[in-house]
């Protein structure tokens, strides 16, 4: 189609990342911030252009496709394209990164390195959502790891090295399994292109021919593990609390807002469509894993004393809904899972920013040492309450829509198991309200009263928090707006999977 808008979209951040390095040393601090902000803005603009380009694209399949041979020996192609699902996630990525770049305004420690890594990360993330060649997808997936390692490792908290290497190792081990599966598919079918493979699956009712159900399940598990680490689901989640607690606030925002969604996106785009029969057979196991993630993580969150760790565990709990929704193979389930990704993608950055605001002032995150902040910093109190109730799943906010749709969807396939998940709602309400009361209500210790050290939210912080709040509210009251972007394509994918998986 000739338009290379997609290449432009992911090149802007990469170019920005290089540009930041060229900024003269002495004025490094201020200049990098502006370059970062402008590049993030440009990227946001580009994603909007992609959105409009996509909406004008009629006919099925992917829009704004760019396809050129790249490595002939392995029939790898430079193949980019977007459909509803990718557009929604691209918008989320650039929106959250815009907030992130604003939040990283006063990073003092070698700002040039920070902002260039930040933009490299942004470029990697955007690339992942638009790659249609599995090799290219894997490439972007890995490119994104390196800056994340440095961002957590250099600018993080006290135990940052441990958290950084743990993050890198977990994701790399997962992605190595995925690589094996990708290469196996290439060997058996000679192509890396996602659309072609999906067509193959549709034609032959499954990859690897007749007798290879064992291999299909093995490959599905390889894909699932790689993405479950990213989601993160229960057994593979232990890296998230460490990574979040040690990462600086803006990086936590992006880690929670976008990186976790790549797991979900991978499941939607590759794991389920490639191995529908395996997904059906493993359905119950995946649902059990999701249930454990939801309820287990909620209980663990209740016992946390570090505010950020609590929000991290609540992320694990909320992302459990994504795998639950996908495993149900129902329209409501899939739409709900995707909606939870968008909802959680806006609410969790807001929560992490809220934790960041108080951490910047109090330099500690111990829940028991806070108290009555709502009276000391009124606007901050209101925003924090809004964020907490949004994450709680209060109606008229996006969290509720996502949870209800996932429940309705998964109830149709796994009635009894879904009832167990509803317990998670109560436990979530419990630990969030306990936190709200410990930190924001009750009497205000003297230390938090003096305005000099504890000013209310600054204009910059508001500029990050308010747009996120508005989106959460808009997605809560008029969900069809956000859902219409990805609904068509998502249900197309689901039909394909169900047709072969033989689900009723």
């Amino acid at each position: 189609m000739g338009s290379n808008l997609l290449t432009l979209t992911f090149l802007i951040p990469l170019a920005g990342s290089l540009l930041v390095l060229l900024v003269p040393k002495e004025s490094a601090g201020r200049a990098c911030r502006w370059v970062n902000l402008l590049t993030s803005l440009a990227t946001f603009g580009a994603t909007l252009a992609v959105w409009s380009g996509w909406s004008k694209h009629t006919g099925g399949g992917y829009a704004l496709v760019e396809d050129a041979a790249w490595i002939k020996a392995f029939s790898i192609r430079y193949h980019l394209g977007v459909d509803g699902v990718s557009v929604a996630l691209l918008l989320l990525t650039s929106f959250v990164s815009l907030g992130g770049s604003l939040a990283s305004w006063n990073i003092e420690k070698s700002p040039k390195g920070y902002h260039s890594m930040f933009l490299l990360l942004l470029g990697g993330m955007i690339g992942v959502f638009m790659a249609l060649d599995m090799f290219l997808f894997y490439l972007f997936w890995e490119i994104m790891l390196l800056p994340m390692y440095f961002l957590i490792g250099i600018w993080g908290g006290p135990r940052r090295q441990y958290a950084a290497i743990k993050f890198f190792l977990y994701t790399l081990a997962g992605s190595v399994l995925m690589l094996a599966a990708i290469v196996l598919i290439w060997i058996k079918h000679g192509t890396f292109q996602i659309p072609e493979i999906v067509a193959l699956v549709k034609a032959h009712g499954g990859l690897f021919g007749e007798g290879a159900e064992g291999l299909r399940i093995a490959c599905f598990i390889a894909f699932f593990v790689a993405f479950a680490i990213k989601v993160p689901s229960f057994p593979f989640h232990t890296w998230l609390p460490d990574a979040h607690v040690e990462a600086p606030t803006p990086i936590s925002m992006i880690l929670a807002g976008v990186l976790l969604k790549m797991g979900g996106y991978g499941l939607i785009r590759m794991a389920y469509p490639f191995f529908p029969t395996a997904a059906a057979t493993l359905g119950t196991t995946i649902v059990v894993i999701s249930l454990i993630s939801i309820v287990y993580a909620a209980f663990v969150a209740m016992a946390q004393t570090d505010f950020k760790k609590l929000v991290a565990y609540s992320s694990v709990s909320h992302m459990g809904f994504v795998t639950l929704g996908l495993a149900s193979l129902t329209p409501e389930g899939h739409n709900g899972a995707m909606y939870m990704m968008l909802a959680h993608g806006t609410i969790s950055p807001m929560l992490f920013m809220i934790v960041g605001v108080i951490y910047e002032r109090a330099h500690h995150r111990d829940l028991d040492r806070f108290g009555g902040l709502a009276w000391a910093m009124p606007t901050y109190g209101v925003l924090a309450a809004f964020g907490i109730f949004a994450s709680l799943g209060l109606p008229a906010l996006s969290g509720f829509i996502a949870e209800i749709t996932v429940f309705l969807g998964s109830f149709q396939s796994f009635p009894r198991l879904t009832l167990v998940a509803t317990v998670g709602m109560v436990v979530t309400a419990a630990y969030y309200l306990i936190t709200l009361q410990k930190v924001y209500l009750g009497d205000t210790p003297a230390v938090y009263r003096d305005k000099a050290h504890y000013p209310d939210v600054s204009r910059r912080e508001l500029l990050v928090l308010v747009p996120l709040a508005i989106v959460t509210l808009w997605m809560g009251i008029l969900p069809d707006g956000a859902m219409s972007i990805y609904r068509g394509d998502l249900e197309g994918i689901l039909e394909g999977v169900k047709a072969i998986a033989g689900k009723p």
Partner: protein
Amino acid sequence: MTALGALLPSILLTAGVLAVLFADAAAKGRRPLLLPWISGTALVAVAAVAVAWLAGDRLGDRVVLGALRMDAFTAVLTLFCAVAGLVSILATLVGDGNSRPGGEFHALVLCAVVGMSVLAAAVDMVTLYLAFELVSITGYVLVGMRRADRLANEAAMKYVLFGAVSSGLMVYGLSLLFGLAGGTSLEALRAAVVSGASSQPVFVAAVVLVFAGFAFKVSAAPFHFWAPDVYQGAPTAVAGFLSVASKAAGFAGLVRVVLALGAQPATAKEPIASFLPWGSPVAAVLAVAAVLTMTVGNLAACRQKDLKRLLAYSSIAHAGYMLMALAVWTPNAMSALVFYLVTYLFMNLAAFLFAGIVVRATGSSSIDSLHGLGFRNPWLAAAFTLVMLSLTGIPPMLGFLGKLVLFESVLREGWVWFAVIGLLNGAISLYYYALPLRRMYLEGVAEGAPPVRLAPGAAVLAAVLVLPVVAFFLWWSPLADWARTVVPSLRIGS
């Protein structure tokens, strides 16, 4: 391809050796600057000859003088060893240890390259053994070069004793094979194996003993013990040379022998997901050795505190990956092995070069000496990071492509579990490759730490080595296609 043509590289190198020795003698004690130039030109000439062989198709895959098989494989490896020798000499100039070594150093390096190119071409047991020993002996002396250094002496002693014992085992194995084959040429051996010689029990013993020799050379488990001590004791540039050139020559010899011993390729019986590929005893031994080497290399490396020992274990681990290709032993796997060797050349030499520079700058080879390098010399640190990540196999660096080609060939044979073990080993290796990263970046920089200066020569050499590690990714397909041309010349599977 006349006999003289075939021996051209050896002749050039020998001439180089003589020239170097004369120049050194004539200079009467003053180390003339001329020496590196002489050895350099000799090596470049050999490289040119090898490229000429590759470019034109004058090789003709004929056996010359009954002992040397002139084919693309030999040409590639001669080129490989010549480049490795050249880089090692240059690395010594900038690295730690005696930066302006005497004539013997250059002579020995040139002799080693002769041995390697002959070993790559050897299709006769005698030539094979002679070349093998030539490479080993020059190696022993190179390691023990600095007579005053206690550690170098100890390293050399261990190296010579361990090497001698292993080559003893090998030659005993070869003698048994000679008995079976009735002749010293590998062709005769192949004929004997095809006609059922492999069923006799003594054949298995012979094979294992021969592999012991080669296992020592490529530092595969269980004969890898010498590597960490020797690499730590030896000057870094020499360690680099050993880890790349002698290992490549070892693999070349191993390919020739496996060609003869494992007559029928070790295709797995049932097509998919077979775990133990007991195609033939040869494949079995290689497969077990590969997994053992990989795991030993990776596990032990995680606990290292010395940079050179870490690189030693990493080269052991990489030997394990290469052994995987040998164990699968299909034409595709052979070209994957050659491709992996090339990527391994650039990565490892760069890694040892940086190690040498750091040891020279900070005086100690422990990883802690890298503290805050990221802030003291950003470019060096960045290059070092890229090489480390390439060794782990992170895209878009060259190491990833090597691994991809390698595992693709393994998966193609359906050895899924074998490939998964290899891939997971690769992932674990991130832990110890990230150790230097941690010291350089994650711990911030102590105040007043002196910036690390980089000599201009070292910078150029580093750039030459690092550039391909990153840039090759863009012109990757020509390299992949070229690797595939090497295979037919090996006449495998005939």
